[in-house]
């Protein structure tokens, strides 16, 4: 866990990709879940942030 946070702090690809992946997964779940309308409403912006972040952080050093 401390590796993950130090990776984020030092702008390392692995940690940031992990974060972006998590955001995308949450966004997709929010889009398709049957529980709360507000989650559906904010799903697209969540997925979009995650996807753009994923593209950007893929260029960070390992």
């Amino acid at each position, binding site marked *: 866990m401390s590796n993950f946070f130090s990776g984020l702090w030092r702008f390392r690809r692995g940690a940031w990709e992990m974060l972006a*992946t998590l955001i*995308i997964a949450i*966004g997709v779940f929010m*889009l*398709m879940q049957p529980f709360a309308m507000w989650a*559906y409403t904010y799903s697209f912006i969540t*997925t979009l942030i995650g*996807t753009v972040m994923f593209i950007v952080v893929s260029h960070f050093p390992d």
Partner: protein
Amino acid sequence: MSLDPVEQVARATPVTVAKKIRGLSDRAIAWIFVGPTILLLLAINIFPLIWTINLSFTNYKANRPNRPVEYVGLRNYERILNDSDIWLNMQATAHFLVWTIVFQVLIGFTLAWLINKKFKGNDLWTTIIVLPMMLSPAVVGNFWTFFYQPQIGLFNYVVGFFTGADPSSFEMLGSVDLAPWAIVIVDTWMWTPFVMLICLAGLRSIPNYIYEAAAIDRASKWRQFWTITLPMVLPFLMLAVLFRGIENFKMFDLVVQLTGGGPGSTTELASINLKREAFEKWRTGYSSAFAIILFVTVFGLASIYVKALNKVKER
């Protein structure tokens, strides 16, 4: 030493002329080969994507090309993301996506594992199993509609035979509870062979000597499966899930043939609604925004998946 004719001509050609003929660098030659593909990609993929993003911020209607187009900002996105009907479509898509992948992976892998055993008629069975995916979705949709007929349908008869239920007592395509499962069954029937073929390729790529070494170490069949077979087939399996996931997220033809999105809107997948908005209601701007939402979702999922696939390959 005698030179061959080609060499003789090459040597006799003045250097300046030779440079003119052979003056292209490797990089230039590479561009000549790659250029047409890049142009084609830009014309049929990138340009439409950018154009769709542009349209998604307008109230453009393709059936009224002369009407002045207004930029409406994020209003189309706002409407879609506050529409409870589209939310239900997304849930229907999720149901279809998850269950088809679960069934196709389980059955596909089992079939591949069985087919991989050497037995008589192995090739014939492979051909028979692969047949459904070679059929047109329109044909499959049509004949499964007959299979699901409550009075004369083979499916109802078989279910009735095994469960003792009256075949005409249930309607697969007409029932709100059963229709989502009816489309899952048909897609599974049609596309399981595809997953099976990919798994079979994975199984056949495992060298025999690994199993022999495991057998010498007295590893049980069960342990061989969990420590050799499954990890080595996993990248193939994940690839199959990626292909089927993307394909089923935009599933249209089969479901339209079977249920047309009904009863009510229980099987109205996102792509069916998208087509209605784009080509029946002609709300091009709105449907472009809808398409972009679906695109970003698939793109995001595919990114995660490709990353996971690479990690599995590295192991």
